[in-house]
């Protein structure tokens, strides 16, 4: 509980404008974990949880539908919206390219103007891309058009706080040099690590299958497999109080009681203790025949607000602000199972992410709307770092009012 208390209620975390250096990251991240060592949480009202790390990889059929594979042999093109080539050069200057590089990038033979959009299309050489600093990527890439989700510069691949190395501890099927290249091309948005240069990576891949592998590895997420340790002397009343979530999750009492009474069985997978919806979703990816309407797929807000719902309301695909205003109140410590954790941009108040508290510093989360993002159990510190992509973020904790069951 100590760690969560430090974050509790709401915490505004500030960063200097711009980007963060690698050495700044471990402050919030749990970086000391030997890859797959079984660990235990602190003891608390939840009992003691034993957990081990997993690495989830999106299923191939989902990857095959990726926008990045629509033109798998396409070259790197930077689309810049500017009134003139001078304007395009100014954007490159703001990204701190030196004058020689800018002249090279904007030479007539390297630039075309798209007749439909009016954008200046710049084709950087491989050398330019490889020699860019993370700060240059941070400054330039968000400005590249179009400002749509399928543009990897605007909507970059979100890497975990430890970068690609966090998710390549199991076989990747990729050459080491590819992993090294991803590492080299990684940059920071706030404290969050991002990757955009998929075209360069593809240009070096030997086959279509290797491009699939690249996308699968970039889509990997660290997950946690957790088990509650139960013994005959466990405090059943305390455990029921915690996992029952004020009566909202009392369906788990029978199995909890039964396993406690069972000799020679002292571990129960946490999935058995989750309410119906997260239990159904945990460790899985969204499916085309599952939740979602049209292009509105389940995201973090849908997932977090559906935590106690027997059947997640489709209405949560539209918006959840009204539910938040009406049904939730600030959660005083100690944290309770299922509490809603909201990460906001501290300056604008925009919601960035939401997830649910499980126990100790474990949370249930879906990190992104994409079909390639699974529902996972994670550590709050890691999720906060993953979404630390603005100068200041606010982390706040909320609880369903007692008059609401879901």
């Amino acid at each position: 509980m100590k760690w969560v208390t430090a974050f509790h209620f709401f915490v505004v975390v500030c960063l200097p404008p711009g980007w963060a250096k690698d050495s700044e990251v471990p402050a919030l991240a749990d970086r000391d974990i030997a890859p797959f060592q079984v660990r235990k949480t602190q003891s608390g009202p939840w009992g003691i949880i034993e957990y081990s790390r997993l690495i989830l990889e999106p299923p191939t059929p989902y990857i095959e539908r990726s926008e990045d594979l629509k033109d798998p042999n396409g070259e790197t093109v930077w689309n810049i919206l500017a009134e003139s080539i001078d304007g395009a050069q100014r954007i490159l200057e703001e990204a701190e390219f030196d004058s020689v590089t800018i002249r090279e990038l904007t030479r007539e033979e390297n630039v075309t103007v798209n007749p439909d959009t009016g954008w200046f299309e710049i084709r950087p050489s491989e050398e330019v891309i490889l020699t860019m600093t993370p700060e240059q990527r941070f400054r330039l890439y968000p400005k590249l058009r179009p400002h749509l989700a399928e543009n990897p510069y605007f909507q970059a691949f979100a890497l975990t706080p430890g970068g690609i190395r966090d998710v390549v501890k199991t076989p990747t099927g990729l050459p080491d040099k590819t992993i090294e290249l991803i590492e080299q091309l990684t940059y920071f948005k706030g404290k969050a690590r991002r990757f955009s240069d998929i075209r360069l990576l593809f240009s070096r891949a030997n086959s279509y299958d290797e491009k699939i592998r690249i996308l699968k590895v970039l889509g990997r997420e660290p997950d946690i497999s957790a088990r509650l340790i139960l013994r005959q002397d466990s405090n059943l009343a305390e455990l029921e109080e915690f996992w029952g979530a004020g009566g909202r999750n009392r369906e788990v009492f029978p199995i909890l009681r039964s396993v406690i009474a069972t000799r020679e069985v002292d571990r129960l997978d946490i999935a058995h203790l989750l309410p119906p919806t997260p239990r159904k979703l945990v460790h899985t990816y969204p499916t085309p025949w599952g939740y979602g309407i049209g292009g509105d797929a389940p995201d973090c807000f849908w997932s977090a607000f559906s935590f106690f719902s027997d059947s997640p309301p489709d209405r949560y695909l539209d918006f959840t602000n009204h539910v938040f205003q009406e049904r939730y109140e600030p959660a005083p410590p100690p944290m309770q199972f299922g509490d809603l954790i909201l990460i906001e941009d501290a300056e604008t108040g925009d919601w960035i992410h939401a997830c649910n508290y499980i126990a100790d510093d474990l949370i249930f989360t879906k990190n992104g709307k994409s079909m390639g993002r699974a529902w996972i159990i994670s550590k709050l510190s890691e999720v906060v770092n993953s979404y630390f992509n603005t100068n200041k973020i606010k982390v706040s904790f909320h609880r369903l009012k007692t008059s609401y069951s879901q």
Partner: protein
Amino acid sequence: MKVLLLCLSCFPLLGATFLPALEDSTRSQSSVATKPIPCNPGPWGQLDYYYIYLEAPDHIADLISAPSDRTIWHFPGKTLDEIDAILTTALIDERQRNRIYNDSDVFILEPPYRLFPAIDIVESMNPLSRQTLYRHLSPWSENRFYRRPIIIESGDVRSWFANSNLTDETILHISKLTYQLGNSLAFSDIPAVLTRINSDKEEREFLRAITRTRSLVLRMTISADSDFAALKDYWTLGKNGKDLMSFFDSVSQTPAVETVDVIHLLPSTPRKYLNTFPSLSLAMDGQYPGHFWTSLNFDRYNPLSDFDEEKTAISFIRKFYQPVAKPYRYGDLLLFFDVETSDVIHTCIYIADDIVYTRNDRSPLRPFMLMKIGDLITRIRAANAELGVEALRRKE
């Protein structure tokens, strides 16, 4: 698994006529019910399971209306002579029979006849006598405790009610009132036990304890030597299983994970409900889910309520399923039917070895659970003498 589900015959829904009566299953292994028990080896991998005893949560158990402590035997459609013959067959002697008739005089003036045996007569019956009489009483729905007795699959009353908060005296009392049903013990004399219970608290504990159902927690042991490709092939249900396989791929590559709870290998819907009692939201369409709903929605991400209607369910099975012979595969539908009438008695889903996924009743007191096939057969045979079974698989 020398279970009978293997005696495949024609499927009555598809025009079949007869399936031989089922043999009895092997006796449940569980005088030491709380130890993990290994499954037989097979394409499902190295599995073990342990029993868990699920009691309805308080908010559901509190809905149970306590019956009277007077034992009632209903004999609808029977004459007094026929009733006397039944009691005689059940080894109830003439003196006791006369006492029963005297105690029931108002209620034997005209049919349908009801008898009210005194507690000492009920308690003095031996197990064989009880078994014989209660089998006669079971076909009539008026005799709810005899029609749907409490089945103690383990055959061990003490371990069945362990940690139930029942007193030793109550457990002993129940034990004396049990009778053999297939390879399990059955218990019907709830009113008789209530005669010895004096406090409201104990009465609630008793009524909750008799909702106990034995389910399983099924686990897979994995190691570097495991054939993950074969395991994945077994546990994948066509396209609907693929979303689960990322987790399996992951654990197969993670050295620290040696055991996987099979809940993670089940499709979304059974994973959502396994080992829980149905919540009220599942009855929003007018009734709690039955066995058809449970079986036919096994691999559906979003369950269809249409399957609650038997006609729709059978029509769906006819259209989309085909009979299969052993070996059965994960996800196969097992359909149990009354040999005499061809009526469908129950359906469930084959998981692995001799374990099925099932929900045995529409009642909110019945959980979604894993069960040994032999135990399931004992349970659904309680009210059905001759049972047939057919295995069916979704057409490609």
